[in-house]
């Protein structure tokens, strides 16, 4: 498929006018589809005007924050109107094609921000409770923590050329390990270590079948997920259902001295649990590993062109094994979050598709640790918005907001919002000549 795709951006269908740079067919399609999307969203906001009443209130602080910020009241109708008009204008600007490169990006940003502000204003306008902005953002980081860690695992595997559809399974096995070891030792640290080891164990299964036995990696991922679900479910029924093996301690949030006193940002960012901080640190760590160390260069080389890497003496299987196992550490820590940040209690299949959202973040983030983490946070934001909007009692079903990550990913892989380019040998087993 990749061969066809590179030629899709050929010159046929390009528009060449005096004084304007060349626009390829792919870029044109992308510009038009983003334009249509933003225009439709803008029209939708204008349509919602009829259902906007009163003022929209946004709470910038929780009741318990050290510095209390005022609750902002904004006039609902004018704000939604302005946002809707901005979206329509940005969309129209993109559709006419009169905007130069930098302004196109600006129009896209205006459309996105305009929609978010307009939608939230509409949702909060005239409600009994203010929209809890600080709560939304703080919870976003909490929801996104395992997604970020899972996405980092995916990035590491796929950069080395191994597709990891089994992030969900790694989460499950690691979560159970965290629950059991946490209960026995009553120690958060040991629970996290056990989860990381369990993640590495699942990664080793993935590696042995993908690298040594060259099983189709997608099918393998599906089977490993089933195995993880089956084995954790069976062990839960047989052994770990008694509460003396299934009630791990729960993490408390750690306020960073000084930083957590900053108004708004402090309680939102610097009052999280240890795994959230760990996830935050892991992103630059993985970036440095992949892009600033010779190990990372070798990992990327076996993901792009294993034959060439092999020729200069790099062990393709060795690099792939190491990348998959290191990824397992991150996926395992992500799995621990489900136990240690919630009830300390493992129930069957309770990761509930998070591994697949992490996979989506890998692709939306274009196999880059930073972007993948950002996408994971965006997906966390959408998921959290779903539950916040539910408490406001708006007519928007929370299910639609929770669909957002999945729909966004389909749109992305369909090339409607920028083409994503994976590592060249992603998913291809390597056989020494």
């Amino acid at each position, binding site marked *: 498929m990749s061969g066809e795709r590179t030629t899709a951006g050929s010159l046929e269908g390009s528009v060449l006018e005096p004084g304007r740079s060349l626009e390829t067919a792919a870029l044109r399609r992308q510009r038009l589809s983003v334009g249509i999307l933003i225009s439709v969203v803008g029209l939708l906001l204008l349509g919602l005007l009829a259902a906007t009443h009163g003022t929209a209130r946004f709470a910038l602080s929780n009741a318990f924050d050290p510095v209390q910020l005022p609750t902002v009241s904004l006039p609902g109708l004018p704000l939604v109107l302005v946002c809707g008009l901005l979206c329509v204008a940005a969309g129209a600007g993109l559709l006419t094609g009169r905007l130069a490169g930098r302004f196109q990006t600006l129009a896209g940003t205006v459309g996105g921000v305009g929609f978010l502000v307009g939608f939230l204003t509409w949702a909060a306008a005239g409600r009994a409770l203010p929209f809890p902005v600080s709560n939304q953002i703080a919870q976003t980081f909490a929801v996104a923590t395992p997604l970020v860690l899972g996405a980092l695992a995916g990035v590491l595997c796929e950069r080395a050329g191994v597709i990891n559809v089994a992030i969900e399974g790694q989460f499950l096995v690691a979560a159970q390990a965290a629950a059991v070891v946490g209960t026995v030792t009553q120690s958060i640290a040991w629970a996290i270590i056990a989860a990381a080891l369990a993640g590495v164990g699942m990664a080793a299964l993935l590696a042995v079948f993908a690298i040594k036995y060259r099983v189709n990696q997608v099918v393998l991922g599906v*089977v490993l997920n089933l195995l993880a679900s089956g084995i954790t479910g069976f062990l839960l029924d047989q052994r770990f259902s008694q509460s003396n093996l299934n009630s791990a301690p729960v993490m408390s949030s750690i306020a960073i001295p000084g930083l957590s006193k900053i108004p708004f940002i402090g309680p939102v960012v610097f009052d999280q649990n240890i795994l959230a901080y760990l996830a935050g640190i892991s992103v630059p760590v993985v970036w440095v590993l992949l892009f600033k160390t010779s190990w990372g260069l070798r990992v990327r080389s076996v993901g792009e062109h294993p034959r060439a890497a092999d020729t200069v003496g790099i062990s393709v299987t060795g690099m792939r094994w190491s990348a998959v196992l290191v990824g397992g550490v991150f996926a395992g820590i992500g799995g621990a979050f489900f136990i240690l940040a919630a009830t300390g209690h493992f129930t069957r299949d309770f990761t509930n598709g998070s591994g697949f959202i992490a996979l989506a973040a890998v692709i939306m983030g274009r196999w880059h640790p930073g972007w993948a983490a950002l996408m994971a946070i965006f997906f966390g934001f959408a998921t959290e918005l779903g539950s916040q909007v539910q408490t406001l009692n708006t007519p928007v079903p929370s299910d639609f907001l929770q669909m957002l990550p999945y729909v966004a990913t389909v749109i992305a*892989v369909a090339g409607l919002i920028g083409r994503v380019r994976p590592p060249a040998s992603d998913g291809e087993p390597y056989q020494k000549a």
Partner: protein
Amino acid sequence: MTRSSWWTEILTTIAAIVLALIIGAVVMVVSDPDVLDKYAYFFYRPGDALAASGDKIGSAYFALLKGAVGSWGAITQSTSQAAPLILAGLGVALAFRAGLINIGGQGQAIWGAIFAAYIGFGVHLPLVIHVLVALIAGVLGGAIWGGLVGWLKARTGAHEVIVTIMLNYVAIRMLAWLLTTPAFQRPGRTDSISPIVDWTATFARLAGSQLHVGFVLALLAAAAVWWLLERSTLGFALKAVGANPHAAATAGMSVARTTIIVMVLAGALAGLAGVDAALAPSDSGVPVPLSNGIVGDVGFDAVTVALVGRSRPVGVVLAGLLFGALHTGGLGMQGAQTPGTVTDVLQALIVLFVAAPALVTRLLPFLRRRAARSATPESTGALT
């Protein structure tokens, strides 16, 4: 397909089942504290530990076998469990043959169930017509959801794996949302459950058993898929595209058209599995009402059925029966000391071994000269 390679695949599959049973037995022993305690004094009295292990393994597998095929009731229960597995498995197998990995059986079956159930309880029609209309609606629902994947792949090159995984979750959320709307939620209930399907839309069953129309439908679908693959022009094009899309295109076949048709058909088959979930009678004789878990894990189970069935209709029927019997046997083990969920472990292990024949021949060297090929495409390529 020569005689000897048939034989090889059967041997490898049996070997995979045996290996899975052995590992399953180890898992059972290791996870039971009572049995494990006896290993503490293994060198003093090895008999105790071995007897306890043997008892544990024997009673579990006996309960499993008895629950699956121990009586006429159990056998028909197994066929009713096998029906959706066979139907969805055929959908995955058909896509495999065309070189497509259809992980979207879940979403396609959910739409099949939504459409069929809605016709079942929302519309009132005479006896035979009602069930036919509901069936066609469900097939359409699955076909549209599968066709969407084929269309996206043909038009934009979007990888079917990622699109099907994502669309599964979209379908799950749509079902969850629909069940909160007045059109689907049972009046007077606040939880996510639909009204009960009319008896006119329920699959007929043989009196006193669980042998119902769904299983017949599964066998008919398998026959139809066999005819399609082995006797029709479309089937030839499909297999050609699966073997080598570039060669097929050079020979004048439209890869895009074939991709869309295959995904429509695969979706229709998975949709049928959803129809079965929505309209087949449960033990009480009434279909299970639409709820969030209506189709279970049929989409991922279907992948295992297609793999073990080597993507061939006869194989899929046999694999569906095997896993249907496993599920039924697992349900029958509830009273035993070993939880029935051990069947989920067995199922995943069987598939893991079938997917990696090289591992089977390594563990059982006497099979080496007959190494079977894996049932899956060699490489997937990246997921975009």
